[in-house]
């Protein structure tokens, strides 16, 4: 007979470790512990999955192509500025393809002059094919396209992280998945729609000048209902002056609160963007109406001062994601690097706007490709029912084992409890997220745990039937069942590992509990119960085994 001391110590150690790791998962108890103990103990346990505590799970894709287009658009604007500065009279500068800029000019002699400017735009190369006396075609270099696409996703990740941090969610997860997908998990969020809007908003802030000279010629309606923007755009199609566009201001009727739109003719040229912001805060106006006050950084402040100085008595539109929030008349040169975004905001809207402005704009629009929202009530229902059913099922098995195997059944039940304890301890130690499929995985490994014991006991019974002494029968039963148990566990483990590697979301959660459970099963079945049998045999000379 083997010595039991070492194995008993090992068992005790495992049990104690499991309990220590589990404690932080049970907050009421953990909080009651004295401070010094909390410092030396693990402080994070099992997290409940979204299906159990409610929340949102979003998978988004960055529109990379659009990010490249936006970058090219910016180059177009800065090129226009540069041409004006250098007093080179060109007819037009426009983006003519996803990565292409075409510069048109009347005077063929300008060509050489403009070509020299390529030095300032090293990311572009001139294409020869479209050679013409009055035209130059620039193409964004492939390496730059790749860089923009790569940085777009990183920038989007960063921006979303910033926004969520400021929104205030406990334990959010923002993570890149594959090449261009972003996964966001917000457990326990009470206002899913608001959170989603906050994440998804591009929040590109632009200052643009209204084209007041040409607006009267277009005969635009004074105001239109929301959702009728397309009609206006159709009406002015082909009549827009070069370099202009129609944008809409959002506004609300004072008495009914109904939303409507005011169309404006706006110059496409961007005077200033939100890049140059250093801060954005909510303030309360004199009529108790919230607005967002923004602070520019040093460069932005100087720029803003110059723009406002050049355009006194003209109207400037504050545009966020192609919607005008306000279009005030510039009364005077604005110094000090501050400005206000007014509009009809609720307090919450103003708050969210300040958050997205502070966190910065997304490099490109996001496309939501998966959106799972679980209300907190369903989560609670699921837990209650799941736990109840599991407890009931557990009780049935425990009772069955005792009825069928008597004293040995009790030992098997001890192994079952040990199994559960170790599994929960291991999950806590790994800070695993427990989902509903995860619970199913636990139930399944419990089943396998019982199976191991059944295999062993049936083998012991066979040995006893052959007339062997109790101690020999127990040893023989364990030895013979050993290979079978290992084989059956390894095959299931193979499935579990495959699921873990290639499964996603809920399947992965299931695989984690399954794989851990299998390992722990092997331990309890081969060491845990055997030690009890050995102990029994050592203390008393067992003549008859209750099995």
């Amino acid at each position: 007979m083997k010595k039991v001391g070492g194995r008993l110590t090992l068992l005790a150690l495992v049990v104690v470790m499991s309990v220590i790791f589990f404690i932080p998962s049970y907050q009421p108890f953990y909080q009651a512990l004295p401070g010094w103990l909390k410092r030396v103990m693990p402080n994070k346990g099992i997290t409940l999955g979204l299906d159990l505590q409610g929340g949102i799970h979003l998978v988004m894709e960055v529109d990379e192509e659009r990010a490249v287009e936006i970058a090219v658009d910016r180059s177009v604007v800065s090129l226009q500025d540069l041409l004006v500065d250098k007093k080179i009279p060109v007819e037009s500068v426009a983006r003519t393809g996803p990565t292409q800029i075409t510069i048109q000019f009347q005077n063929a002699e300008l060509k050489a002059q403009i070509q020299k400017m390529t030095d300032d735009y090293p990311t572009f190369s001139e294409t020869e094919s479209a050679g013409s006396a009055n035209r130059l075609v620039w193409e964004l270099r492939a390496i730059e396209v790749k860089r923009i696409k790569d940085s777009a996703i990183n920038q989007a990740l960063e921006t979303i992280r910033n926004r969520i941090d400021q929104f205030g969610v406990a334990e959010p997860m923002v993570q890149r998945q594959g090449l261009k997908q972003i996964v966001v998990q917000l457990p326990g969020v009470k206002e899913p729609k608001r959170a989603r809007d906050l994440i998804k908003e591009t929040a590109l802030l632009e200052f643009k000048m209204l084209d007041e000279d040409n607006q009267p010629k277009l005969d635009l309606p004074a105001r239109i209902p929301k959702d009728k923007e397309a009609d206006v755009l159709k009406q002015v199609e082909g009549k827009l002056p070069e370099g202009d566009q129609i944008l809409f201001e959002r506004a609300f009727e004072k008495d009914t609160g109904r939303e409507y739109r005011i169309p404006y003719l706006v110059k496409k040229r961007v005077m200033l963007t939100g890049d140059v912001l250093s801060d954005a805060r909510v303030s309360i106006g004199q009529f108790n109406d919230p607005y967002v006050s923004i602070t520019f950084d040093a460069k932005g402040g100087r720029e803003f001062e110059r723009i406002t100085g050049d355009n006194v008595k003209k109207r400037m539109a504050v545009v966020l994601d192609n919607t005008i929030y306000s279009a005030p008349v510039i009364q005077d040169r604005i110094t000090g690097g501050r400005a206000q975004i007014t509009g009809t905001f609720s307090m919450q809207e103003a708050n969210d706007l300040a958050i997205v402005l502070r966190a910065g704009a997304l490099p490109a629009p996001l496309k939501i490709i998966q959106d799972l929202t679980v209300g907190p009530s369903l989560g609670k229902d699921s837990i209650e029912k799941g736990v109840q059913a599991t407890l009931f099922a557990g009780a049935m098995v425990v009772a069955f084992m005792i009825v069928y195997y008597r004293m040995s059944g009790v030992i098997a039940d001890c192994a079952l409890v040990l199994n559960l304890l170790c599994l929960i301890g291991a999950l806590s130690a790994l800070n695993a997220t427990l989902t509903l499929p995860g619970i199913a995985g636990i139930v399944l490994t419990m089943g396998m745990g019982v199976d191991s014991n059944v295999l062993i006991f049936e083998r012991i019974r066979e040995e006893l039937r052959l007339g062997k002494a109790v101690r020999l029968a127990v040893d023989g039963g364990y030895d013979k069942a050993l290979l079978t148990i290992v084989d059956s566990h390894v095959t299931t483990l193979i499935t579990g590992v495959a699921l873990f590697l290639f499964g996603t979301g809920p399947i992965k959660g299931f695989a984690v509990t399954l794989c851990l459970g299998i390992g722990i099963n092997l331990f309890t079945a081969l060491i845990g119960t055997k030690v009890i049998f050995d102990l029994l045999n050592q203390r008393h000379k067992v003549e008859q085994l209750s099995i």
Partner: protein
Amino acid sequence: MLEILGKTDIDFMGKRRWAFIFSGIMVVLGIVAVIQIARGSANLGIDFSGGTAVQLKFDQAIRIDEARKTLEANGLGDAELQEFGQENKLLIRLKASTTIEEKVAERVVAVFTKEFPSNHFVVDSSSEIGPTIGQKLQQDALIAVIISFAGIILYVAARFELRFGVAAALATFHDVLAVLGAFYVLDKEITLLVVTALLTLAGYSMTDTVVVFDRIRENLRMRRRDSEETMINNAVNQVLSRTIVTSLTVVLVLIPLALAGGEVLHDFSLALLWGVIFGTYSSIFVASPLLLLWPGASGRLLKRS
């Protein structure tokens, strides 16, 4: 000693013809289901097909036909409705063709808020899944299945013989197909959770088969004079009580889960429940007889020991 079965001596192998006929039918059903899934005409859950699912919990009972009419009137006529009895829960599903940009979930919620103003409700859950994600999931699930099967065949082939590995894999395939076929015939929705259940039952059925094979291997090593059929029969009889006790305990766990585990666990446990039944059947009536169809080089297992 309480025993369900004493020492048995049932001629399982002799009944293999009937078993093969029954299994053949189940496998054909399963294959039909697989083809239908590939063609997209099976009842695939939105996690695979893409689409929208919204679950609402009302304060008062809501009539499903009224709800359907309301949705139709608001241009959401292709919605599938399902209610969860006593709790006034309504599940609304809209499949494929709808993309997330249309915000279908918000539309559904808006319709019910407008048309049933007196019956307050909360959104239990809402999921919107783009078609690309669904395709990726299908692919991932398929890869996971292929890898795990390849791994299992290799492991069993290494521990036993190639024919054992192939027989075990075939028997497991049979179980998965049979349950899939049953789901298809009953028009049950095949969701990610059901697929998880199928993979679990594959693992379970494999375990069961390995236990029987283990005993066959042991017997092949011990007594060489009997015919292979006799030895396999003996092995199956020897582990029969273990097979039954184990299956019984797993069934004991699954029945409460299926009946009272809540709507999310219901289909999962149901798939597993059938899986256990088929898995037990197949290790006795499919995996073991398959060995007889492919007689091994006699004595090979012996030499290796």
